[in-house]
């Protein structure tokens, strides 16, 4: 590959036909971090050449999402309780409500569009890295919140401090719901005391988010924290979050789902986490996330993870140390950290294996294919073999809207190598060739990318444009090995 394509493969999504190939790739990559991020895509596959902004009506804010989720729950309750309905009729009514109120499918499509059509490809890659680091899987209402979480908690905070992103993520209703914190109540809180007195309700602590905040999001087990640290973190978190599809905001006199701290559920008293004293009250969480964000183990753990995702499969200590140093000097400024990652990714000549999802986006961009439906196509019965975005990511083994574990998808190459995973690469290449109308021939792409001789020999040794297309996309070079 030419240097521009090599770098864009590692830290971006490769160049679309309308992109100018930058002459100074480092300048371009770092400049990309400041690109404006917009949701763009296509309205319909029948008019796929027109890339335009997503309609406002499909970009609901948090309170609109809460309202949609509430409506969805009401409809589901109503429909499922109606004994007069047949199964078919029930499914039909549920589907009507889903179309109107379940934003998840449009969010997942919008996510796909952004990655295929976006002008901010480097930001999309970093955004996906952090969305995966702070995994939110589907659990209850998160189906309607993940899209917002990715936009507002991750992408919007890519250029601020890690501490800021951590706090935004931790207090976002998607995270608070996914890791059960919305049910957690301090054992000595007013609410718990009252419950015990009346003997009418039972409430208490749930340590799920407290544990993952330490283990997965910040310091990692290398910090040697104890169960008492985890418990104390859970106590700091108690009282944060509300059940989004129930009228809890009103009940607790709150105004915003993203800033929902319910005082009478909070644990009183000071807590100690990894030696840091945290006082009771709403500010306690910010003090805790700030402390964790600046912890040495957090820097080390995340620098390594960033290197493994962007720089090389065989992580080099020198790269990790460089990122750690920048992290320290900049007080965890993500803009500077990302810049350092880009520098090391360029400097390292080692290949970087690409995730199935990233590879798919890259294949679609360089071949100029129209694979994902347009937003208007979503609810139509198209006589088209194309899969929904949901099915595509499921099949690739990387569904971001799914019931999944909070550790996210591995950045380790070996996880993604198996017969079944590689058969998917062959089949998706074929499906794209057959259904998504690539505008470039394999030869045109090879010339534009400047492929190496292994790739060229492989492709030129085959007959038939479809075979050449599949082989090019499944070549070591395009897979990043």
């Amino acid at each position: 590959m030419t240097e521009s394509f090599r770098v864009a493969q590692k830290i971006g999504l490769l160049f679309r036909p309308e992109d100018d190939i930058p002459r100074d790739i480092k300048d371009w990559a770092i400049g990309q971090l400041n690109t404006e991020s917009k949701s763009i895509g296509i309205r319909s596959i029948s008019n796929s050449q027109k890339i335009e902004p997503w309609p406002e009506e499909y970009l609901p804010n948090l309170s609109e999402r809460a309202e949609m989720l509430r409506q969805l729950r009401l409809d589901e309750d109503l429909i499922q309780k109606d004994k007069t309905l047949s199964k078919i009729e029930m499914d039909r009514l549920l589907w009507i409500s889903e179309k109107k109120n379940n934003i998840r499918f449009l969010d997942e499509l919008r996510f796909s569009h952004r990655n295929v059509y976006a002008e901010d490809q480097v930001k999309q890659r970093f955004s996906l890295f952090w969305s995966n680091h702070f995994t939110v899987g589907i659990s209850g209402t998160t189906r309607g919140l993940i899209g917002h979480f990715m936009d507002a908690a991750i992408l919007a905070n890519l250029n601020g401090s890690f501490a800021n992103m951590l706090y935004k993520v931790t207090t976002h209703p998607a995270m608070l719901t996914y890791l059960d914190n919305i049910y957690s109540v301090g054992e000595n809180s007013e609410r718990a005391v009252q419950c015990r007195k009346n003997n009418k309700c039972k409430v208490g602590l749930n340590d799920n988010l407290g544990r993952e905040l330490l283990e997965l999001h910040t310091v990692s087990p290398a910090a040697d924290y104890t169960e008492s640290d985890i418990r104390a973190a859970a106590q700091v978190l108690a009282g944060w979050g509300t059940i989004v599809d129930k009228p809890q905001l009103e009940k607790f006199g709150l105004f915003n789902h993203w800033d929902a701290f319910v005082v009478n559920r909070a644990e009183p008293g000071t807590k100690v986490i990894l030696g840091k004293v945290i006082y009771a009250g709403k500010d306690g969480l910010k003090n805790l996330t700030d402390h964790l964000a600046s912890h040495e183990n957090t820097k080390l753990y995340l620098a390594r993870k960033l290197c493994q995702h962007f720089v090389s499969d065989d992580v080099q200590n020198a790269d990790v140390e460089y990122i750690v140093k920048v992290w320290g000097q900049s007080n965890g400024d993500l803009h500077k950290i990302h810049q350092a990652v880009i520098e090391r990714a360029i400097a390292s000549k080692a290949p970087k294996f690409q995730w199935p999802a990233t590879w798919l986006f890259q294949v679609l961009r360089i071949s100029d294919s129209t694979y994902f439906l347009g937003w208007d196509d979503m609810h139509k019965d198209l006589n088209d073999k194309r899969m929904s975005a949901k099915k595509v990511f499921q099949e690739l083994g990387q569904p971001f809207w799914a019931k999944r574990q909070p550790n996210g998808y591995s950045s380790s190459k070996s996880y993604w190598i198996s017969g079944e995973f590689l058969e998917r690469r062959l089949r998706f290449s074929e499906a794209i060739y057959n259904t998504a109308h690539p505008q470039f021939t394999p030869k045109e792409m090879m010339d534009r990318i400047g492929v190496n001789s292994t790739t060229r020999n492989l492709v030129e040794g085959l007959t038939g444009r479809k075979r050449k297309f599949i082989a090019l996309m499944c070549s070591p070079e395009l897979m990043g090995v």
Partner: protein
Amino acid sequence: MTKVEMTRREFLKLTGASLFLSAVPVSGFTKDLPQGNISVILLQGGMDGLTAVPPIGDPALASLRQEIGLSNPIKINPFFGLHPKLQYFSKLMAKGEASVVHATSFPYTKRSHFEGQNYMQGGGSGPFSTTTGWLGRALDLALLPGRAMSLELPLILRGSLDVDNFYPARVSGSSKPEKWLIEQITMAHQAEEAKAFAAVGQKVADQEKSNIPRDPVSLAQYAGEQMSKKGGPVASVIRVNQFDTHALQGADDGNHGDRLELLDEVIKAYRKGLGSAWNNSIILTLTEFGRTASVNGTSGTDHGYGSVGLLAGGLINKSRIISEWPGLGSADLFEDRDLYASIDYRSVCAACIERALGLDHDLITQKVFLTSKLKRTYDYIFS
């Protein structure tokens, strides 16, 4: 709930379960036995051993488990019951074809899913200590093939050249890849990618079925069918997930019970698929940890330590509960919160390998579990 007041000592006398002798391994002991097969069901998220196999005779159980205690467990003996959703498993126990190991775990006490899952599959000196898995290493030593019923090749099976995975593709607009094309692409690749592409070629050459449904039950049945064939895999791995019930765990019904019901169906499907090969089979469950002894504040349980292992298959000739019961009293709990694990589950896995694959215990200890000493539990499970 049946309440049987019994001291720990009385119970142990009754079941004979405390007879944990330091067994003397007999070199080459199992070599002459006919080769069997082994299947591992990975229970992801941490199965609650006190829900799956409640120690109904332990006086502390009821108070620990007020909201999530079972109203109607299947009674195995005066001390232990089975969750009512483990119907099929209970029938196997009645027939002498299933056993339970209780209060057991890999020796890992830090309660992280991801360290625990890595360790239970890797089986080295601790979490993230190896890039191969214990079953893969065992198959490598025995020169026998294995298969995972999942999109990825899980860590547990890595370490042998003769392992593959099966999870049929559903990509609209694509067809079965051409054998010749795969060969060309394989040749352009190196190392593990080349091997994996070659595996795709092999599957195409074998004209393997691709219309198998991908739910765990259908996959278990198919795995059993494949294992029953001559030259088929002798090991298989399948996953049942979502055991991590921090909130609203449920009791007889509900979240955890649903997962146990699915597990029960998976075992049943294996039985069906294996056919007469069932007589040579051992199936065992594996989970990263148990859950807290008491209920948390949100009607669920948090990450714990000791759990339970379920064993099924024709290689078991007498059903039993193998346990050195640590008790649930406040002084008995591990770190004041969890069921203690008095049996190292690695030694249970080792016994299953010894029985199914015919490897020597010392060899398993050193080359499979990469340690110098592991108790031999073979006689407690298979005698």
